[in-house]
């Protein structure tokens, strides 16, 4: 029987500066992500769900259980999408696939940004690989996650809830996205793509 634990950030709190501040991470990881873990543990305590993996819980959950479990997963995935001394043009197999499908990395980035900027309210934008091997850019709302869509493989995400960028960028989501692109951990994306 295991309670879920808040995973440590895969980098130091100030490692993503100036794109994402240590202050943002203190709240985003230390409060928001931590609270989802706390609430999830509270909901599964004393139930058979304590024996299940996070992914298994998410697949069958609804309501508050889904909201908290999915947000735990979404945020862990998001931290892994970011790294210091990373970002820029996509490298490796995913870099090649992006150019093949979108014509250029810039064309892909423009499409992704367009989806992300127009993603209304609390939401996430994702890069996924479909069953036929092609890439797709999709939006989800609130705690929604493509993890529950068994026809896609999740590759990359950006958190568009205002708590992800309000401290550093206030309302200017496009500037947050610029910062995001300077941090994308293409090694992680390539691992997911393989």
């Amino acid at each position: 029987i295991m309670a879920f634990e808040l995973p440590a950030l895969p980098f130091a709190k100030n490692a993503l500066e100036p794109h994402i501040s240590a202050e943002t991470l203190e709240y985003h990881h230390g409060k928001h992500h931590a609270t989802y873990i706390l609430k999830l543990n509270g909901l599964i305590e004393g139930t058979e769900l304590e024996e299940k993996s996070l992914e298994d819980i998410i697949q069958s959950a609804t309501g508050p259980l889904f909201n908290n479990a999915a947000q735990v997963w979404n945020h862990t995935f998001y931290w892994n999408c970011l790294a210091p001394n990373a970002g820029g043009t996509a490298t490796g197999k995913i870099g090649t696939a992006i150019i093949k499908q979108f014509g250029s990395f810039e064309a892909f980035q423009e499409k992704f940004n367009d989806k992300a900027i127009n993603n209304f309210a609390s939401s996430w934008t994702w890069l996924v690989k479909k069953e036929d091997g092609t890439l797709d850019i999709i939006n989800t709302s609130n705690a929604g996650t493509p993890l529950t869509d068994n026809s896609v493989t999740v590759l990359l995400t950006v958190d568009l809830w205002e708590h992800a960028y309000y401290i550093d960028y206030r309302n200017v989501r496009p500037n947050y996205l610029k910062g995001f692109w300077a941090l994308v951990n293409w090694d992680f994306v390539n691992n997911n793509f393989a």
Partner: protein
Amino acid sequence: EAMQSQLSAATVAVQGSGWGWLGYNKQRKALQLATCPNQDPLEASTGLVPLFGIDVWEHAYYLQYKNVRPDYVKAIWKVANWKDISSRYDAALKA
């Protein structure tokens, strides 16, 4: 106080972005509490006449309260414009 604590609780519990509302139900001729997601308009989606709304999109409170939405919802009552709320209520009664 009961209305305040019920509306506060419902508003804090809104998932993601949304609004908490004190509204007027014209059919039942009674006050009614509601929450709406995102920017969904109260009257169009529930039929209630809006009297007092609490914005809980994170941009409404993040600078001052960060993640602590309950503190913001507690504080908003200190600046609720009861004059405006009353005149909306009066208008709803007459309509």
